[in-house]
């Protein structure tokens, strides 16, 4: 195996996704192949309806493709049932949502610690309190641990959501428009956190976004149009983008 193969966190081969049947069928994705690696922050661009969210759902083991194969950490996940997918997600995946999706009745630290509770179903939540609060402090949220989500700003909520995802120690973090609801400063702060997650924790981070201000924080930019992967570029230090030559793997014959 090559070094490149070793760092692959999720790999999709010739995947398509079709909603509906017959004349009303909608092809959200068509024959997409790519490999997402550890230590990279990948941005996924594309107009509305281009298939970004569907690709994110498939990468995160939330949705099966209609055709093609998905490998998460070298495990073929196509065909697994929902409980098996849920087990894979809690072991390897973290999610950050556009609207934060925090649990409104839990305090900030509880919102973070609950992530561990999903894995350790019967254990006490307070066992994970220190770890959760340490993460919150790292993300600049000291002093807010006892607040409820409705007492936070959008940027603070998004960092809580990131802390929740981080507590799972994911190998793959998927974010859907994480800066869409944030102002410029808060958006940059969130982007910096995602960047640090990829480079310091060697997490594979995939961000669906329309926000081109995130490009300086990224390693790679994918663009989808009409369900097809139309470009795959590496972001260079000078801000220029060049084709990402090793990323797109042809389907295995």
């Amino acid at each position, binding site marked *: 195996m090559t070094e490149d193969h070793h760092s692959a966190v999720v790999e999709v081969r010739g995947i398509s996704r079709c909603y509906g049947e017959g004349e009303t069928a909608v092809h959200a994705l068509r024959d997409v192949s790519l490999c997402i690696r550890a230590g990279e922050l990948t941005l996924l661009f594309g107009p509305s309806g281009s298939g970004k969210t569907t690709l994110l759902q498939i990468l995160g083991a939330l949705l099966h493709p209609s055709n093609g194969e998905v490998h998460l950490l070298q495990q073929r996940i196509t065909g697994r049932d929902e409980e098996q997918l849920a087990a894979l997600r809690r072991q390897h995946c973290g999610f950050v949502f556009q609207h934060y999706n925090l649990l409104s009745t839990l305090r900030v630290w509880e919102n973070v610690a609950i992530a561990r509770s999903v894995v350790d179903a019967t254990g006490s939540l307070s066992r994970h309190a220190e770890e959760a*609060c340490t993460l919150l402090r790292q993300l600049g949220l000291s002093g807010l641990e006892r607040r409820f989500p409705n007492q936070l700003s959008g940027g603070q909520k998004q960092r809580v959501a990131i802390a929740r995802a981080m507590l799972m120690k994911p190998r793959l973090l998927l974010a859907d428009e994480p800066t869409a609801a944030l102002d410029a400063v808060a958006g940059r702060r969130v982007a910096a956190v995602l960047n*640090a997650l990829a480079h310091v924790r060697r997490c594979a981070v995939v961000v669906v976004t329309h926000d081109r201000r995130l490009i300086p924080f990224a390693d790679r930019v994918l663009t989808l149009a009409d369900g097809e992967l139309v470009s795959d570029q590496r972001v260079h230090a000078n801000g220029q983008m060049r084709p990402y030559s090793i990323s797109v793997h042809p389907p295995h014959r």
Partner: protein
Amino acid sequence: MGEAANAAQATLAASNHAVVVNAAVATPLPAMWMPRWPISGTLLLAWRNLTHERTRFAATLIGVVFSVALMGIQLGLLIGFARTASGLVGSTPADLWVLPYGTANVDISGQLLQRREIEALSLPDVASADSLLVQFAFWKTPDGRTESVSIVGFDPATRVGAPPGVDDDTLRALQIDDGILVERLFMQKLGVERLGQIVEINGQRARVVGFTDGIRSFTQSPYVFTTHARATRFVNYHPTQTTYVLVRLRSGADVDVVRSQLQARLPRTDVVTPGEFASRTQYYWLVITGAGFALLLAAGLGLMVGTVIVGQTLYSSTIDRLTEYATLRAMGASAAWLRRIVLSQAVLSASLGYSVGIVLVWAAAQLSSFSTVLVSLPIWNALLLAALTLGMCAMGAWMSIRRLARIEPSSVFQ
């Protein structure tokens, strides 16, 4: 990309929010932050989801409390009625009862000849045989109303059939002419105000010479105790007639054997054990008359109302939080983990509602001791109520659980 990372760090530093995602040093938390006791994520979430909307929570609790109280009181009445119906049988010390053939309950019976006593005594294993007369009669109150009473005639010398808890002095008082014992709980109903009061039973003079305590009657016709001889006069029986013969066996005698012997020797009678006669009486009053069914129906109604209220409030709470449940599912929560949240909500509702409801039932049971209608709350009934409440809330959670089973984790990204 190194520059991008540096830029990111610089941005963070400028905003006074240092991000050090690889730091692993945990700082101890203030103790006040921690829950007072170890609590799992599902239980905490269940509790918070329940209590977050106080109006809905209050409605749930009121529903559960109402159901527990309704079920508890109806079941308590049923048990109380069962005990009351067979109370006379249960409180009478006998190994076997000889009844007129086909007697369905202790309150309504045909006649036996008193010589059945002698016939029973002719068996070597029979230690004693005593007549007991139970028959309805009319009682005229001082204000001219007519009430139905149940005359119980027994032999004060043997005390077999005597009301429980009555002392020797009171029994001796029955030697006074026309003497009767009246239940205190029914004094008002019968217009009895004092000892020595003269009353009228089936047009015959009677004198209240004592009181019994806590002897209720399922038929609400109060038991009036007197001597057997006097009872035959009150109910216009021939002195040689009675309604039951109570048999006590010698030590070591086989009840089944003696019963068979008695049954063979006493034609047109039923020879039964006290337990059988009590069951027969309860069956008659609670099943044949439909009284028990009515009580069970009311208890069932309570169960149904509780299930609907809990189901409706849990379901609306679940629907309100579908996005949160889908988020948890997307994070990898198993279906069982999500179920546990809803079931925990159900168990918490059940526990809190039961705690209040059972106090109300207990209070009703205590108050009933001053009433002619008994609400009984034995420990097994309290446990049965707890199980019913849990079952009711679990049933209420069923719709929510079904809805959660259909949740699409991918919906969080739509």
